């Protein structure tokens, strides 16, 4: 008995691994949100006039939008005027090559286990490293450019490929789509841009690693992925933040455009600081992610492993416009302690013979609340649309909650829509069974949870699947006594 308690104590006192921060001199916008700040950010980034106008238009609309309150989460209102909307390490200069990047900044990523050194990196993954409001470095740019692939920071894309940015920016998530998307459109700072030309299969995983370092700063990044006809890309996003007592806001927008026969696979391993054991601090993760299967036979697949953030509000969605297009959503969302997650997807069937598949696995522990919210919409001309949804919830302990909010809206009689849902509890029987075979309790929990989430984890690129498995175990450590 005493030994059990001791183990429990050790586990629950384990801290968030990426909770450290680094002091560097920052180039920051003054706190507050108004048109001058937006002009300041735009000037800082030497943006063209049209983009500034775009931002201002978003801002003016946003000012008249109410803050959404429909999600199943509660949190104190964020004072948006107290935040800073831009913060960048001063060491960042306009560098052309990786060699010129300040070693201090590279060291931050080394410490997170992300090597920006191309020689040292595993072959097969190119990284764009975003620190607070700016991109620090992008690897393998040269290799990819030979294939005509553009992979760079958003700011760079605005300068180097303005015609592409202008064409696609806001085309999937309109600037006034929702409160946080509008805010993002007004103040977004950096993010990744990726363009795969016609017929090209991207030979490596592309990934963006987001890190918030500065205090009292919001991170508003924007990612835009364009896959031309018959192209393929697999994209991965990772994120961490220091452990701070106050809540920090992360409001990103991701847009994906897939032309005919193109396929985009977007995977996220989200590990923002979740707040401490008492629910103090942590990131508010209010994100809009949407992809459009614009061409026939195109496919967009979202996979997410959500373990961090104090409050998550996120619905990666697919607009299935092209005939025979496919949308997929695979999600594992874990909440522990006082975390709250309201996450799911929207599948909007517009084209004929479109298909969508939703697999959502929620895991709640501690005093957390975990909600799945999903919408399946079949439009009038979407003949033979098919959807399959599966929403499972796993509960650990008796103080957490799991909720499911499926919305189904069918306007075509030929649609086939299936929805399955289960709720289960991690059983003491299962843990004892593992114990009796010599498996320690924390390993037993990891085994059971990974088994439960397997269908989703299998969708992740190999090396990230291993990372995600470890992360799941770490997030739930100490949640079973």
């Amino acid at each position: 008995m005493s030994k059990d308690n001791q183990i429990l104590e050790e586990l629950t006192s384990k801290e968030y691994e990426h909770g450290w921060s680094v002091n560097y001199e920052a180039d920051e916008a003054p706190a507050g949100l108004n048109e001058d700040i937006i002009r300041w950010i735009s000037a800082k980034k030497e943006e063209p006039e049209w983009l500034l106008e775009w931002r201002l238009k978003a801002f003016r609309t946003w000012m008249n939008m109410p803050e959404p309150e429909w999600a199943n989460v509660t949190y104190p209102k964020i004072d948006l005027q107290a935040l800073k909307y831009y913060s960048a390490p001063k060491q960042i200069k306009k560098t052309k090559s990786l060699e010129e990047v300040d070693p201090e900044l590279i060291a931050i990523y080394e410490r997170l286990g992300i090597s920006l050194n191309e020689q040292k990196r595993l072959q097969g993954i190119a990284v764009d490293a975003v620190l607070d409001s700016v991109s620090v470095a992008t690897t393998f740019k040269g290799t990819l450019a030979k294939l005509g692939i553009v992979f760079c920071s958003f700011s760079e894309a605005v300068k180097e490929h303005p015609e592409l940015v202008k064409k696609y920016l806001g085309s999937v998530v309109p600037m006034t789509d929702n409160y946080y998307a509008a805010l993002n459109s007004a103040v977004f700072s950096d993010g990744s841009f990726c363009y795969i030309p016609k017929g090209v299969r991207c030979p490596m995983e592309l990934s963006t690693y987001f890190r918030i370092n500065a205090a009292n700063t919001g991170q508003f990044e924007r990612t835009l992925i364009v896959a031309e006809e018959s192209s393929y890309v697999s994209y991965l996003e990772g994120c961490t933040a220091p452990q701070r007592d106050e809540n920090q806001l992360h409001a990103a927008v991701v847009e994906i455009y897939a032309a005919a026969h193109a396929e985009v696979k977007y995977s996220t391993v989200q590990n923002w600081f979740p707040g401490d054991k008492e629910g103090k601090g942590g990131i508010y993760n209010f994100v809009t992610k949407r992809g459009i299967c614009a061409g026939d036979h195109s496919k967009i697949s979202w996979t997410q492993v959500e373990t961090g953030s104090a409050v998550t509000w996120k619905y990666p969605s697919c607009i299935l416009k092209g005939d025979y297009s496919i949308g997929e959503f695979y999600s594992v969302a874990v909440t522990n302690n006082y975390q709250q997650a309201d996450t799911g997807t929207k599948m909007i069937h517009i084209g004929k013979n479109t298909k969508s598949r939703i697999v959502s696995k929620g895991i709640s522990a501690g005093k957390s609340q975990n909600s799945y919210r999903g919408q399946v919409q079949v439009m009038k001309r979407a003949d033979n649309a098919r959807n399959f949804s599966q929403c499972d919830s796993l509960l650990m302990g008796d103080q957490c909650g799991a909720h499911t909010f499926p919305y189904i809206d069918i306007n075509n009689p030929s649609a086939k829509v299936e929805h399955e849902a289960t709720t289960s509890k991690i059983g003491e029987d299962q843990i004892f069974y593992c114990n009796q075979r010599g498996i320690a309790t924390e390993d037993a929990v990891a085994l059971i949870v990974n088994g439960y989430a397997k269908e989703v984890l299998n969708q992740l690129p190999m090396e990230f699947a291993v990372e995600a498995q470890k992360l799941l175990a770490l997030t739930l450590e100490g949640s079973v006594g």
Partner: protein
Amino acid sequence: MLSIKNLHASVEGTPILRGINLEVKAGEVHAIMGPNGSGKSTLASVLAGREEYEVTDGEVIFQGKDLLDLAPEDRAREGVFLAFQYPVEIPGVSSTNFLRTALNQVREYRGLEPLDAVKFLSLMKEKMALVEIDQKLLSRSLNEGFSGGEKKRNEIFQMAMLEPTLSILDETDSGLDIDALRIVSNGVNKLKSDKTATIVVTHYQRLLDYIVPDYVHVLYKGRIVKSGTKELALELEEKGYDWIKEEVDSATV
């Protein structure tokens, strides 16, 4: 090997075991029989370390160690194996993955190197033959959708893999048809040696035709009220438990 002295245990304040005494030596097979509710499965669970059972008195020494002081996983690593009456399902975890995790944790505890995939698989092949279990079954989620017989066979397969010193079979015969019973018993018999011991908990004599016990104990109201050799099991089969109940109940009045 195993020495149980005056063991008392209760569930939620209700006493179930009321002073068990039992000595098991290496090489022996002991059968624990008794009517329903006599505490047979409780005894098995207490030895394995199930948390719901509170030990209120007595001691259990296993190979010189105080068993009751060890966490359930450490008891397993010390060599105590419980074949469950109702094996648990773990969706998404294959038997292979489960056993590899288990075996390597046991090996680590004993200061042995973990088995690599190749060695593990060849060990599996060897033990699969013992209980006539199909490879396909082992790549499926642990016990999920297994028939009753497959679940029990899988228990014995796990026992073969983990090579325990003391095996406790809790109602392993329940839900088995005659062929499955033969296969499971064969497996158990092949695993017996002069260094290991087996405790067979069963309600019926049937299993004991296959796994022949050296001693038979009758459990009633949380105590061992009668001990004997395998002939006692036959007598019970013939006469039922009532005569023992009467004997005990009249003695305590």
